[in-house]
């Protein structure tokens, strides 16, 4: 037989077989479990020369019913995240995530999901889908903002936390999160102040606390904070009357002897700071 006839005969036979048994001759793999009835109906999903289109997907999978009802109208167990997720999607995006002909298990047939496919409103509402993934720890209980403020869309870690995201009322509660970060030294043991009084929110060091800027703690002044700072947590207030050397009667007597009657603000005259000026 002439090669041309062999070619034509084979082409006709193979074309007929491909039309009769497309699942065997043409299909690149089995369809998903839910699609198994379509194994021999390629054109249910494929448009000739146009591939698979969303228009064909939504003839069965109505976007408003995803997560609520299945394709035959039966109610599904409530899955709020799935409902919100699919409702917000653009009209032609089924193929962005879903594919077929890979394996029979639907969950494995999902392509890499891209957050860019989501609508802007849904992108700003991470919790709509990720609410079950929020860790049950102090930080996440305080952080009320969107996940994307700290996390990227590719991985949860590394994350960049910014204290500005905390609510104003929570921002002053440093110790509720940083209890274990507090050093067990004299200075920190005595301090009732908020960490933010000395530390920044990016790093612990450098810290701004430097007592010498206000008053050098030397000689008899090397004493506990509470001797001078009697109002807990407020280190702007101080008193010089808390030691027997500076008793109110002594101070009054000494100052009146010099003709000084306004001596409430000790530091006005008795500066002893790092500028080196000392007026006592």
């Amino acid at each position, binding site marked *: 037989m002439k*090669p041309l006839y*062999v*070619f034509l005969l084979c082409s006709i036979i193979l074309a007929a077989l491909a039309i009769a048994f497309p699942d065997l*001759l043409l299909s690149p793999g089995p369809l998903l479990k839910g699609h198994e009835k379509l194994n021999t109906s390629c054109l249910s999903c494929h448009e000739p*020369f146009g*591939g698979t289109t969303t228009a064909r997907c939504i003839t069965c999978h109505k976007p408003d019913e995803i997560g609520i009802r299945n394709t035959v109208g039966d109610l599904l167990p409530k899955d709020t995240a799935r409902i919100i997720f699919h409702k917000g999607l653009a009209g032609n995006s089924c193929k962005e995530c879903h594919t077929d002909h890979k394996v029979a298990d639907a969950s494995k047939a999902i392509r890499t999901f891209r957050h860019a496919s989501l609508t802007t409103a849904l992108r700003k509402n991470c919790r709509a889908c990720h609410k079950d993934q929020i860790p049950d720890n102090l930080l996440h209980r305080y952080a009320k903002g969107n996940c994307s403020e700290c996390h990227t869309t590719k991985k949860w870690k590394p994350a960049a936390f910014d204290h500005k995201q905390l609510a104003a009322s929570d921002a002053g509660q440093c110790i509720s999160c940083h209890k274990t970060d507090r050093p067990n030294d004299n200075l920190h043991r005595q301090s009732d102040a908020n960490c933010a009084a000395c530390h920044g929110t990016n790093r612990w060091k450098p810290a701004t606390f430097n007592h010498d800027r206000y008053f050098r703690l030397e000689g008899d002044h090397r004493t506990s904070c509470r001797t001078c700072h009697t109002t807990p947590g407020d280190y702007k207030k101080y008193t010089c009357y808390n030691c027997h050397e500076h008793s109110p009667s002594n101070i009054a007597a000494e100052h009146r002897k010099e003709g000084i009657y306004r001596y409430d603000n000790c530091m006005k005259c008795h500066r002893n700071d790092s500028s080196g000026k000392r007026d006592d």
Partner: protein
Amino acid sequence: MWQSVLIQRALPLTLSWMLLIAAAISLDYLLHRADLPWIGRYLGVAGTAFVASSFGYSARKKKIVQKGSVRLFLRLHCNAGWIGTLMIVVHSGIHFNALLPWMATLFMMTVTASGHIGQYLVRKLREEVRIKKMETGIENDRNEDPEREHYWDSVTLKALEKWRAIHMPIVSVLLALCLLHILSVIFFLNWR
């Protein structure tokens, strides 16, 4: 034993066919290792172009192409066919499950094997013609009559007829399989 004509001519061709399989497996492995198996998809197109170019030999023999040495076209046929087959076998390594492309791959390997046998026969017949020419004393006649040269070519071709009677139908089946595979891909592919 190594001086045997059979070994001298058949061994390199057998090795060439086995090398084709080994190269395809190695290339496929490397592409998967480098996480680049998608390249295999495009090797199908490139391989088809190579195989199609190998048909230049048939066009030259049928005088559709008028110029160029037939031997050169034969060499092009063999080399382009070998490279094209390699690319297409790697292309098949992207694990499609349909019967049609697998049958095409199987036939492609068969056609390549048959091509190697043809190559062996051509070499063997050329050697026999050379010996016959030597016996008749025309071996060193550089100004040989073109018609006589054509006679010797036809002697070679006639001897190859039996081989062609098997090779060409397999090629025809392969072409039918490839055509349907390509058409089905164009028909179902997502072009957007």
